C-alpha cells in the first residue's frame, strides 16, 4: 500500500471524502450567516441556536405528531424560518442602523434564551432520533465504507447551497434583494416592501441553518446546546471566506471541512484549532477574507 507521511493513500481518500461531507455542512451553515450579513449587515450569533432548533424540531415533530423525516426536511426549516421572522420583526428591526456589534450582542442574548428554555424542557442528555430506513446501510467504496446517509447529506447540502447562490446572484428576485438592502429608499420608491423583504431574508438565512439541523438530527446527538459549539467554528469559516460573500462562504465551507479532515488524520489534537489558525493567517494576508471585497 502506498503511503503519504505514514498514512495509507486509501485512508487518505476516505478522510478527504469525510472532509468534503463535513465541509458541505459548514457550507450550509456559513451560507446562512453570509446571506444574513451580506444582505442585512446583521451578525447573527443566534445561528447556532437556529441550527439546534431545526434539529430539535425534527425530533419533536416526530415524537409528538409522527412527522417523518421527509416532511420534517421542509416543515422544520419553515417553522424555524417563522421564528426567525418574528425575531427580526420584534427585535432586530429596532436596532437597524446601529453599529453591527449590537446585532451580535442582541442575537447572542436570543441564543441564550432559546438554549436555556429548551434545556429546561428537554434536558441535555440528547433526544433520540432514528435514521430513516431508506438510508440504513451504506456502500463500500473500496477505500472506505460510505454510509448512504452521508452521501445524501452531501447531495442535499450542495443542492441547497447552489440553489441559494443561484437565486441571490443570478435571478431577478436576488437582484431586488441586493438592491433593496443596499438602497432601501430607492426600492421603497419602486413600490417594494423593503421591511418585509428584510424579515424574509433573515427568515431565509435561519431556514438554511435549520435545514442543516434536520440533516444533523439522525447522525449527531440532538441537544439544546448542540449549536453553541458549532457557531464559533462556522463564524470562523465565514470570516475566512469574507463576510457577506455568498459564493465565498460555500467554497470556504467545503475547503475548511477538508482542511479539518486532513488535520484529523495527520495531527488530531490540533483539529479543532486549525480553522482558527487558518482564520488568523488569512486575515493577516487578506484583511477581508479570501473572497471578500476590500472594505
Amino acid at each position, binding site marked *: 500500500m502506498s503511503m503519504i507521511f505514514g498514512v495509507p493513500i486509501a485512508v487518505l481518500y476516505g478522510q478527504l471524502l469525510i472532509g468534503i461531507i463535513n465541509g458541505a455542512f459548514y457550507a450550509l451553515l456559513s451560507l446562512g450567516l453570509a446571506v444574513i450579513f451580506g444582505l442585512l449587515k446583521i*451578525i447573527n450569533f443566534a445561528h447556532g441556536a437556529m441550527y439546534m432548533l431545526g434539529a430539535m424540531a425534527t425530533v419533536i415533530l416526530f415524537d409528538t405528531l409522527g412527522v417523518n423525516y421527509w416532511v420534517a426536511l421542509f416543515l422544520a426549516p419553515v417553522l424555524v424560518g417563522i421564528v426567525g421572522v418574528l425575531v427580526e420583526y420584534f*427585535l432586530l428591526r*429596532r*436596532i437597524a442602523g*446601529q*453599529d*453591527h*456589534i*449590537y446585532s*451580535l*450582542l*442582541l442575537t*447572542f*442574548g*436570543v*441564543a*441564550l*434564551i*432559546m*438554549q*436555556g*428554555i429548551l*434545556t*429546561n424542557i428537554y434536558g441535555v442528555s440528547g433526544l433520540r432520533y432514528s435514521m430513516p430506513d431508506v438510508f440504513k446501510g451504506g456502500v463500500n467504496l473500496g477505500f472506505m465504507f460510505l454510509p448512504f446517509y452521508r452521501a445524501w447529506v452531501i447531495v442535499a447540502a450542495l443542492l441547497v447551497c447552489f440553489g441559494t447562490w443561484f437565486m441571490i446572484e443570478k435571478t431577478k428576485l436576488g437582484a431586488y434583494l441586493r438592491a433593496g438592502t443596499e438602497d432601501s429608499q430607492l426600492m421603497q420608491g419602486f413600490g417594494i416592501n423593503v421591511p418585509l423583504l428584510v424579515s424574509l431574508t433573515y427568515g431565509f438565512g435561519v431556514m438554511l441553518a435549520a435545514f442543516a439541523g434536520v440533516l444533523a438530527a439522525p447522525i449527531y446527538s440532538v441537544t439544546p446546546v448542540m449549536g453553541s459549539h458549532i457557531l*464559533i467554528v462556522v*463564524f*470562523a469559516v465565514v*470570516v475566512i471566506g469574507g*463576510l457577506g460573500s455568498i459564493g465565498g462562504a460555500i467554497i470556504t465551507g467545503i475547503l475548511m471541512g477538508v482542511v479539518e479532515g486532513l488535520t484529523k488524520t495527520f495531527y488530531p*489534537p490540533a483539529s*479543532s*484549532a486549525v480553522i*482558527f*489558525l487558518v*482564520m*488568523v493567517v488569512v*486575515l*493577516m494576508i487578506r*484583511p*477581508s477574507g479570501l473572497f471578500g471585497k476590500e*472594505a
Partner: protein
Amino acid sequence: MSQTDIQSDIQASILRQQKTENRRKLILNGVLLVLLLLAPFVLYPVFLMKILCFALFAVAFNLLFGFTGLLSFGHAAFLATGGYTTGYLLSNFSGLTTEMGIIAGTLVATLLGLGFALLSIRRQGIYFAMVTLALAQLVFFFFVQAPFTGGEDGMHGVPRGELFGLINLEDNLNMYYFVLAVFLGCYLLVQRIVSSPYGHVLKAIKQNESRAVSLGYKVDRYKILAFVISAALAGLAGSMKSVVFQLASLNDAHWHMSGEVILMTLIGGMGTLLGPVLGATLVVNIEYQLGQGPLRDWVDPILGGIFVLTVLAFRSGIVGEVQKFVRKNMG
C-alpha cells in the same frame, strides 16, 4: 456689559458647574469607598472579592471597548492566562510570595495581550472581534490540553500565602483589603488614563479613526497600548481570582466568559468609569442569587433576556442612562 464680561461670566458658570459636578463625584466616590471598606463586615468577603475581580476584569475590558471602541471577543484568554500562571507558580514554587505570583501572572497576560494586539490591531469592527475570538480559542485549546492546567478537573489548592511574606492572606479580611487596594489602584489608574491627553486621543479614535489619522496621530500605536493595558488588567483580575478562590478553571478561558464581560460592561454602561463595576456586581449577583432560588434553572435565559433588553432599551447602560438623566434635569 462688555463682551469680555460675558465671556468671563460664561467661564465662571462653566467652572461652577464643573465644581458642583466634581463635588458630586467626590461625595459619591467617598460614600462608595466607605461602603467598600465596611462591606466585608456585612456581606460575605469571598463573594465580595469575586465581584471585585470581575469588576476589575470589566473595567479592563471597558478601557478597550468603551473608550477606544474596539470590541474584543477574546478577553477570557487574558483572565485565564493570569489565573493559570499565578496558580501554577504559587503551587509549584513555595519560595514565591503571593504578590510575586500575581505580578508574574499579570506579566504573562500582558505579553499575550501584546501578541494579540500585534496580530489584530489593523482589523476593523467585526473583523477585530473575530480575530480576537479566534486567538482566544487557540489559547483555550492550549489550556484544555496542557497537562499543568488539570484540564476539566481544573487547578486546585493554590496557596494564598503571605503578602510580602508578612500579611497572612488565608485570613479573608486581609485578603479582601488586599484585593480592594489592588482594585482601587487599577480603577484610579484607568481614571487617570482616560482623562489624560492619551485618553483623549483614544476617544478621538473611537469617534472617528480616519480623522485621528489625518491629525497625525499614530493610531495603531495608541490602540496597541490600550489593548496591552487592558490585557494586563484583565490578567491581573484573573491572577487575583485564582488566589482568592485558590483555584483556576477552564470556565475562565471559555468564550462565554468573553461574552459575559461584554454583558457586564454593556449593562452597567460602556464608556463610563463606574458602569463596568456596577455591571459586574449585577451579573455576578444575578448568577449567584438566582442559582440559589426557585429560578435556578432559568439563569441562562434570564441573562439572555437582560442582554436583549439592554441592547434594545438602554444601550448606554445603567450608569450612562443615569448620567443622561442627571445632565438633563440637574445640569
